């Protein structure tokens, strides 16, 4: 092949590399997800951009109804004795916990925080 063809081929490859790398490195808006952990096992991962409701049954039989609304998630109904999971409200960061039913909702991405104290 001619030197010219090589130059065209290689510069094309070079540009492709740069474009690919930029695409990989470029910061994109982090999609927010929440991990639902019941009895120590990950039950499901919820996309917080999709509004929905679901009921989680704990290994011990307790039930919590979760609701995803406008990028946030909260517990709207629970049969635990204290109801502290409902009192934690709708959140988009940190953790929501129902100790009696061994339920943990953990936020995976999109949270600007490393952790929440409290």
């Amino acid at each position, binding site marked *: 092949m001619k030197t010219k063809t090589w130059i065209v081929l290689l510069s094309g490859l070079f540009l492709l590399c740069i474009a690919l790398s930029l695409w990989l490195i470029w910061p994109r808006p982090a999609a927010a997800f929440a991990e639902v952990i019941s009895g120590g096992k990950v039950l499901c991962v919820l996309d917080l951009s999709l509004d929905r409701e679901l009921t989680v049954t704990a290994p011990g039989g307790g039930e919590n109804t979760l609701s995803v609304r406008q990028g946030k998630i909260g517990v709207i109904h629970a049969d635990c004795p204290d109801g502290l999971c409902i009192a934690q409200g709708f959140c988009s960061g940190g953790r929501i916990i129902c100790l009696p039913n061994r339920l943990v909702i953990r936020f995976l991405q999109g949270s600007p925080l490393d*952790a929440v104290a409290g």
Partner: protein
Amino acid sequence: MKRLLSLLFILLLLAGCAPKPSSQTIFCMDTVMGLTVWGRNADDALSRLCGTLNSLDRTWSVTDEDSFLSRFNRGQAQPDEQQAALLARAMELSERTGGAFCPRLQALSRCWGFYNGEYRLPSQEEITQALTQEQWDLGGFLKGYAGSLCTQVLSEAGVDRALLELGGNVQTYGEKPGGEPWRIGIQNPAGGDPLGILLVYGSTAVVTSGDYQRYFEVEGRRYHHILDPRTGYPASSGLSSVTVICSDGAAADALSTALFVLGLEEGTRLWRKEQDFEAVFVCSDGKLYATPGAELSGCAFEVISP
């Protein structure tokens, strides 16, 4: 040329990869703990952390009648060197806070039903009687102490950094890449998203004590789990929560309990004495007060004068 290009491409690809942490969620000390560890020995460190936390839980459990603490309270066991050091540390912190943090309130917490969740309003006689008993209960200290102990385990395991969420207590370990601060939220006592963000650096404990963490209501009145050792009733000092930022986890835990019991004014006085920690007070009316060294953002607050 071609080789050089592929090398460049691989390097660029690698630059985009951040090392993934290992994490685990466990139920321990009657709460949920989230452990996240970065570095080559992360998995090994995680299993060691779980071992340390579970062993502390077994030793100091108030609900397990066969735990060392239960046997010790009955006068059936003597502490070994490590256990004696832990008890001495708890007593030392109790003295520092003028007794506002008290590690010997087991009988009192039990009569309010805070151990088994069978909450009840005890009579004045029961409370007076419970206050005369001196059985140990290291709640309000043990999780913070556990955080400090975990940083030793992490340093022995040789990991880069870690974030330990010990049931509302946060313990950071090591530096984030580029010297970035750890961003720790302060729980909103009224629920919902965090109130503000605290920036902390390196290995630090951030501990919050609040009236919303464990409570029950009778006739519209809230009875929470932080009991005032002077009265035997839930502390009512006009605060919703206190967050303490300190390099030592055990101190952070005991101090947050003590400041909550003491209230803003007396609590501030305690802070002024040594100023070796930072604190954020959230009052029942929603106002926030912070010590000058607390790097708080995302909310309005008043700075406490030294």
